[in-house]
Every structure is written in C-alpha cells, then in structure tokens.
C-alpha cells in the first residue's frame, strides 16, 4: 500500500512543483519515463503473483533507468542514438505489454 501512496505523492508533487528538467538531461527523459512505467507495471504484476520484493523493485528500477540512459548516451556518442533509443523503447514496451497482460489475467480471471 505504501508504495502506491508513494507513487501518488510523487505525481502530486510533480504537478505542484512543476520541476524543470535541466537541458542536458532532456534526451534521457523519455527513456526514464518508459523505464519508470516498466518498473511500476512489473512491481504490480509481482504483487499480484505474490512474489513482490521491495529490494528487487528498487534495484530493478534504478538499474533499468541507469542502463537505459547509458545505452542512449553511448548511442549518441556512436551516432546511432535514435536507433538504440528505438530499440530500448521497443523492448520496454514489450515488457510493459506482457506485465499489463498478466495483470489483466489476474484481475479478470483469478
């Protein structure tokens, strides 16, 4: 329950504070948003599966975001930034879809 409250609190804080993202972080913002979504849905599915572990949750979120940002940065340096970024979005999108499908199965069948 507390993580959900934390999520809501984060959203409310974001709307109220209207944080401005520094310019050098802006290319990584879409990736960070998608990684955050993936972690949220992965966590919800783990809760419904009964195997939620908050340490795994935090570590996976941080690691995913950092690795995704690093891959985008590496791609920018190598000149393939757009393609790598697309690849990351595709993979994370597939994961989000699978997690949401599993959540749906849990909610509407089990």
């Amino acid at each position, binding site marked *: *329950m*507390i*993580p*959900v*409250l*934390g*999520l*809501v*609190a*984060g*959203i*409310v*804080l*974001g*709307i109220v504070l*209207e*944080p*401005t*993202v520094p310019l050098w972080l*802006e290319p990584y*913002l*879409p990736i*960070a*948003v998608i990684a*955050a*979504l993936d*972690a*949220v849905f*992965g*966590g919800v*599915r*783990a*809760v419904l*599966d*009964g*195997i*939620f*572990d*908050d*340490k*795994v*949750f*935090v*570590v*996976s*979120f*941080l690691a995913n975001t950092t690795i995704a940002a690093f891959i985008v940065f590496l791609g920018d340096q190598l000149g393939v930034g757009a393609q790598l970024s697309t690849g990351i979005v595709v*993979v994370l999108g*597939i*994961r989000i879809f*699978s*997690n949401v499908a*599993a959540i749906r199965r849990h909610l509407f069948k089990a």
Partner: protein
Amino acid sequence: MSPRPDASMTLLDQVLRGAVDPGYQEAAARRGPGAPRRRGGWPAALACVVMGLIMVAGAQTLRSPERSVGGERVALAERVEQGRGVVEARSAAVVGLRADIDALRRAGLTGDAGRAAADELARGQARAAAVPVSGPGLVVSLDDAPSAATAAGAAPREAGESDDGRITARDLQYVTNELWAAGAEAIAVNGVRLTSASAIRHAGQAVLVAYRPLARPYTVTAIGGPEMVEAFDAGQGGAYLEELRSSFGVRASSRADAALSAPAGTVLTLRYATAVPGGPSPAAPAPSSKENAS
C-alpha cells in the same frame, strides 16, 4: 544434449516471457516457499515517489513545446493589435490637427492676394484629394463568388487555390477607371481614398490599395452627380459588372446613394514658400505658400 529446435528464438522468448524481473523469482525462491512476502517498505515507497516525479516531469517537459509555440503566437497577435490601435489613434489625431491647420491658414489668408491664394489652395486641395468629400454618388460592391469565398476578412495574404470567382486587383482597377471616366469627383475603396498617386495592385492573393491590404468584400464609393451614375451603369462599367456576375458568379452590384462621403487621402507637406509680392500687408502677415501633395 542437442540444441533445441527453437534455440535461435531464445532472445524473443526471454523478452516475451521474462517480463517479470527474474529477481523477483530468485528472491522468492531464496526466502523459501510459504514465507511471508516482503511488501512495501520505505525503499519501495521512495522509489515510487521518484517514479511519479519522473513521469510528471516527463509529461510536462515533453509536452510543453506546443504550448509555448501557441503562447508566442497569441502574444504576437496581441502586440499587433495593440500597435494597430496606437496607429489608428494617432491617425485620428493627425486628421484633427490638419483641420486645425486648415482653419488657421484660412484665417491668415485675408486681403485680395490672400483670398486668391486661398481659392487656389482650395481648388488644389480638392484635386489632390486632400480634403474629405461628401455628396451623392454611386456605391459599387464587389465580393467573391460564394464558391470561392473564404471567411470574410480572412488573412488576405494566405495562398489559396486560384479561383475564377475571386475579385482581383484588375477588377478594381477597371471599375475605378470607369468611374473616373464617368466623371466621379472622389473615389474611395473600403474607406481608402484614391488620389492621383494611389495604385491598386495585388501582392499574392491580397489586393493592395495605396499600399494598404484590403480584405473582401470591396466597397467602391464614388461621389459625383447623377450623370456619373448613368454614364457608369450604361457604359463599360455596368457591362463589366454584368459580365462578372454572369460569367464568374461574382457578387457585383451598384447602387446610387444620395449621401456618401469619402475621407481625405493625401498628406500635404509644405515644400517651398514664396513671399506675397508687394511685401507683407498688415492684414495678411503670413506669406502665401505653395503646397504640394506628397
């Protein structure tokens, strides 16, 4: 052991089936079956707060470019409107000041030489379209054909499909030339007075009269006697309007009116002045001056 037939698909397999972080499975296995779940502690809540912040910051930052562009346009449009209001106020002030100058000049031109100069000045002003004129005359209304019409007053410089039903500068030129030929004393198009130096041109789709872009519908006000009305309707002008109506579906009409007015056109600037011959008379201290229309 021989590789499985679908070994090459392991990547896709992993992506599709391994959506749940295997970390969850391993942690659950480590805890052993039946152990209570480690749910929501503070680390997870903190991570969720950060996630919420990231998502909202992303939404605000990544969405804002459209909003700022729209805001700039609105701000620019407001500045244009403001500037236009200032220009109109100042133009009205100029008209008032010119009337004052005229009155002062008339008061200063006394005596025979002064009166002659005043008469010549009045004739010159009338010919140069420097004074407003009112009287009976003819009003010619020209509007695009309904099929080619855009919203009235829409930006005239936007490029659109060229249609036969559009009023062009040439139509206005022809109509005004016919009105002059019929004997009009003063002509104004949409409130812009035509002088001897005014041109009716087009720039793209817009019609420019004396360098001012005008939007449809066009109202040509010609002040003259009834013979002008007859000469126009019965002559080439009327025939042209009729052809516009029948061939292109353009809305062209003319009607006589007993009380029309045309505003003043030019700005008169003083170019050179000469003293009245015979020295200044006590009743006319101001030297007469020759004025040119600019």
